[in-house]
């Protein structure tokens, strides 16, 4: 699994390539942590190439909900496959996280 982070038009885009399981979830954790430490207000998570996410990966997302709210930052996920989006929905995380279809929609949501 690979994670890349770039600053793009005022948004901080974290791209996930591969599966997020127990061991690789640490990388995701570090990436989001870094973004928040740097004070990024508009964070996009590119899930186009995210094939599978385990409960460890879900745990990473959920653990930052409070902190993002406190820092007034917005994190938006986009490009989720049907299967992955279903996982978020069953858990109920879709009510807490912003999930969009396309990158543009996500950008709008993050800045809106």
């Amino acid at each position, binding site marked *: 699994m690979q994670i890349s982070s770039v600053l793009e038009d005022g948004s901080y885009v974290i791209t996930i390539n591969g599966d997020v399981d127990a061991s690789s979830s640490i990388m995701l954790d570090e990436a989001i942590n870094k973004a928040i430490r740097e004070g990024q207000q508009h964070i996009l998570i590119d899930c186009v190439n995210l094939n599978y996410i385990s409960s460890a990966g879900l745990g*990473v997302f959920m653990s930052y909900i409070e902190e993002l709210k406190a820092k007034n930052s917005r994190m938006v996920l986009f490009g989720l496959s049907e299967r992955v989006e279903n996982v978020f929905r*069953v858990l109920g995380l879709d*009510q807490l996280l912003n999930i969009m279809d396309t990158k543009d929609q996500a950008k709008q949501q993050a800045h809106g």
Partner: protein
Amino acid sequence: MPSTNTIIRFTTIAAIVCWLGLVMVDLMIGFELSNANVELGIPRFLPGIFLTGYIVSLFFHYEHRLAGADNLNFIELLWRVFVTGLIATIVSVFIQFFLSFMVSGSKLAEHDLLLSLLYHINIGLILAFVISTFLVWKKLILYQKTKSLLRTWQVFEYSFLASLLFHFIPHVRFDIPFSLIFAFLVALGLVITPNLKWVAFLNFKQKWKSILLILLILLYLGYFLIYLLDQRDNELLISDLSNHVSVLSIYTFIILYAISSLLVTLFNLPTTSVFEQKLEEVVNFQRLSQSGQTGQSQDEIYDLLLDSSMSASFATAAWFEFNHNNENTELITRNIKERELNNVRTAIQTQAEKKTKRPGISSRVSPRNDTLTENIKHSLFKSVLIYALEVQQEKIGTMVLLKEVSDGFNNDVVNIINTFGNQASVSIENYRLLQSAIENERYLEELNIAKRVHESLLPSTLESNEYFEITAFSKPADEVGGDYYDTHRISQDKFAMIIGDVSGKGTSAAFNMSQMKGVFHSLAQIDLDPREFLVKANHALGRCLERTSFITLSYFVLDTREKTIQFSRAGHCPSLYYDHSQLKLNFLESKGLGLGIIRNEEYCNYVEVNQINFKPGDLLVMYTDGITEAKTPTGEEFGYDRLKQIVNENIKKSARDIQKAIIDGLLEFTLADGIEDDYTTMILKFN
């Protein structure tokens, strides 16, 4: 087989008896000879028998006395011989003294019988001394025995014992048969004499002690020899030892061996230290080889290597530098301060640079690339040996030995250092393997405990009444699972049912699950509606779950009197419900967030409760995501649709059969291979 002590006692008595017999017989014969008119009729061979008996008794006596000395202490053995000789000499000297001064001139002094008696006392002592010395020499010779040496010695011993019988054949001293036997025995003795390996094992002090003791022993031997030769051909003597080829041969052998031992010990004095040095190297090597297993840390192994190397090479100073846990370089030094150390390093560096500029300058590199000896320009140290310690092809440290003379490290020393280094490397590897094995074992033990905890958390029986049948199946992934299911009978007609999945695997999941069980059994008693249950459960668990952990649940309250099912879903995969009257099989929709995601009072806004009125023939299938997310080797998921399909196909069957169909279908689909998560089903069929 009589014990050694018995034999010793027996032979002592036998010896004394024989000696007394000899004395008596000789005196009587002597008396007979000097008084022509007396006829005692004593057979002339009798003295010989007693003498032979005496010698043989002495032989077995000392052999068994010495057999007890299991820990061969050479000095002790020599000391024994010395003491025996001393006693014999003292008594003998005393007798001389007695004769010369006390009774000189008197009639008594001239009396034949007295002289004869005194002679017999002397030879009794001499024989005891000779035989005991002979047997001590035997122990020394056979210290490192080979088969051929043993055989040669046995031939020698038996020949000696056999030669005792020669006495009964009429002969004259040194006639042809006598001389032949004498020559044969002495020749054998000479062949055996060069077995002096025991000398090498003495340290310096012991060698000096041996020299002293052997000199004194030779003194006694000489004194007795003079006495015997002096007394030969004395007509009074019936038993003249100098007539016995056996005694003479053995005497000669003892003297030969004593002289050889003396000379060899003397000439080996200068080389004693080499032997001791080698011994110490072996001991150090052994300590190094055992250090990994006896649990000594790596640092202790380094210390051992450094000390052993210094001692083997007689280095004046040394140091060992290594990386501690891949961080900074650490140093262990001997007899050198860090400042001086840096000076030496510079000197070595200078020398290395000089070498690359002018190849061919003398410096020895061992055939293996890890040892280097070098002469350096330094105020104090003139030569250096550098050894690179490698473990599993990774260099972990460098050892530097220093000497104040140039060319101080010869090939022999380099080889030994290499040996030590190799052994240290092996020991360190052993140590590391041992550590990881211990850690592994600890980990397995932890899992084992968690597994037993997990097993105890799952219900042994499922509560039900005549209105429904219920069955459940759960299989954990690793030794420990995170799936949880349980039932609780609230009242006659009311039942609570729960199925859940604790995120994660291994021991932490098991602990979370046990907390879940506690919460379930506490809250279920209060007969809350499912939404309230989840809210309270979330509040309770929110405090104990780790930061990134959450729990998914479905909670059902069944009322068989009202015929209702109330349920709430907290992030768990939606359960399947079959409505028999409408023949419809559907997933139960219910909004609900998993537990532990929102850990404050906001949570109640994210869960809802629903109700179903059940009828006979209805079916409720609860399960965990281990079922729907199970994959084939190619990565295809089992999925919700396939689950629904299998239930549909088996809808008429009993709860148990439906469960079996699901499990079988699952295993068939994944080819019994790809189920990485725990999977659980709990199925209710209404009667």
